[in-house]
């Protein structure tokens, strides 16, 4: 069964002067897939993602996200995607409930829908006792989980996660990936950047970005076979060395 492509990039490039932060990358992401975007810090992951979510204009190349063009249909793209950035991005001085209400509101959810989602989310995350507490007082792991749930609030087709598990303990990371799987099972496409190589193993397909180019793109299993190594970490190291 062939699933439809929800993200298509063709030779997508972002140049800052002579420096090409993203250099002619091409790939497709299928509906419901967990697509990993791996690379060292500064490899161009975030820049590529910013073009896809419509807050940075590509220098050249084409890309379609949820069927909409990244040059002139960014408004439609924004309605269909969720986004969680590297930084923790809920408001610390708002309570859990207020954060949910606010983000539901800016995505245009009805009041009844927000109320329903809020109750559901609070019980799923086990936040019942503290839903009226300021988010700033929660531990980081909970914040991240809440942040992810909030990015799914408007039921987007695709969720973009930019290094979502930075600074989180292994157990929470594990729980976090369980949430990601659950969302993918429900048909949400996940586009996730990371530099944790063990996380790459959780992805269905992985693209490895080195200096703005996609140097490898396949399932973790096939990549390991191709490079004749045991872990994604070694795949990455091999690739990075070749470039040097």
């Amino acid at each position, binding site marked *: 069964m062939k699933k439809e492509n929800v993200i298509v990039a063709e030779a997508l490039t972002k140049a800052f002067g002579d420096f090409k932060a993203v250099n002619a990358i091409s790939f497709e992401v299928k509906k419901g897939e967990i697509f990993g975007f791996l690379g060292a810090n500064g490899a161009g992951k975030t820049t590529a993602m910013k073009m896809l979510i419509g807050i940075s204009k590509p220098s050249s190349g084409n890309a379609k996200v949820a069927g909409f063009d990244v040059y002139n249909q960014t408004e439609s793209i924004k309605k269909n995607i969720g986004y969680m950035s590297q930084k923790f*991005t809920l408001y610390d001085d708002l309570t859990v409930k207020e954060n949910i209400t606010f983000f539901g509101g800016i995505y245009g959810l009805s009041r009844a829908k927000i109320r329903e989602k809020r109750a559901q989310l609070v019980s799923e995350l086990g936040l019942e006792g503290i839903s009226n507490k300021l988010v700033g007082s929660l531990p980081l792991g909970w914040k991240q989980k809440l942040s992810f749930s909030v990015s799914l609030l408007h039921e987007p087709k695709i969720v973009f996660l930019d290094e979502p598990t930075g600074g989180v303990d292994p157990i929470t990371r594990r729980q976090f990936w369980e949430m990601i799987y659950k969302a993918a099972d429900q048909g949400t496409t996940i586009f996730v950047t990371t530099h944790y190589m063990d996380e790459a193993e959780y992805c269905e397909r992985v693209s490895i970005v080195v200096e703005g180019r996609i140097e490898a793109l396949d399932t973790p299993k096939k990549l390991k076979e191709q490079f004749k190594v045991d872990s994604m970490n070694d795949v990455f190291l091999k690739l990075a060395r070749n470039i040097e």
Partner: protein
Amino acid sequence: MKRFIGFIKKEFYHIFRDKRSLFILFGMPIAQILLFGFAITNEINNVQITILDHSKDATTEEIINKISASKYFTTNQMIAREADIETAFKKGKIKAALNFEKDFSRNLIREQKATIQIITDATDPNTANSITNYINAILQNYLQDKNKGIQIDYQIVPQTRMVYNPELKSVFMFVPGVMTIILMLVSAMMTSISITREKELGTMEILLVSPLKPFQVIIGKVVPYIFLSVINAAVIVLLSIFIFKMPVQGSLFLLGAESVLFIITSLALGILISTIAETQQAAMMISLMGLMLPVILLSGFIFPISSMPAPLQIISSIIPAKWFIIIIKGIMLKGVGMAFIWKETLILIGMTVLFIGLSVKKYKIRLE
């Protein structure tokens, strides 16, 4: 629209949960206005005055004695000619001169009305004002004593003349000045900080990825500050009227409208600052150094622009606060209407449009 209300609500949560911004928003205006207000009602002591007595009768002598007896004044000499008043002022020996009209006593009794001229040196307008008030108080006191038990109501009409600064340029000047500073502070600094805060925290990115358009985000951030600034302006005007008896000669409506215009100018400036500054601290530094200092030093609030060297006069013209001070001074103190301040109003509108244009341009460059 519903989205927008949600956004504004969130903005108010931010403001009301941050004690620092609450203090700047509401503590500062009241503290400043009281500080400046009481600073100008400074007490006077042993002020040297001279007296020109054209009638030399019992009443004038009584009054002169009463004034001399007070600890506020020392009558250092009597003079005979009007021209000597000027000489005494120029020598800097006296701060005020009293001029009793001819037949003072007779006028007071026959016509129940006599005139005394109070001439003060208004190069120091605050002192000049205080002196006038003190002398008036002594005259009233004298009349009360004299009128006691009699049916006739005697009146002494003091004619006040302030020399060297007849318009009394900086008395009450503190109200327009403080109002300008507060509005600038709240509107420009607070908005630039609140916008850069979202940039610093990374929430700005989330907002830009949401279906909200960038201008909606900015307007959403700015509206609460318009609201709070208007309240602040009203508080300042009310405090000045009721505590300091500041007259508002012109139309309150025009005053309100011009204040809203200046608030918008400041907000536009705040937005512009937020497109330049990446962090809250940078935004605060730019606002303080780039806005507060020029407003205090160059806008004519404390130092008269006409006495500045030419280069500073030119710089002062690009400060929006200068024009706003002229406008509200005109409305509050002189009671002028739009016919007299349309030029300043246009300048402010022009500046606002320029700031918004620059912000939009800078903002677009950033998105590229």
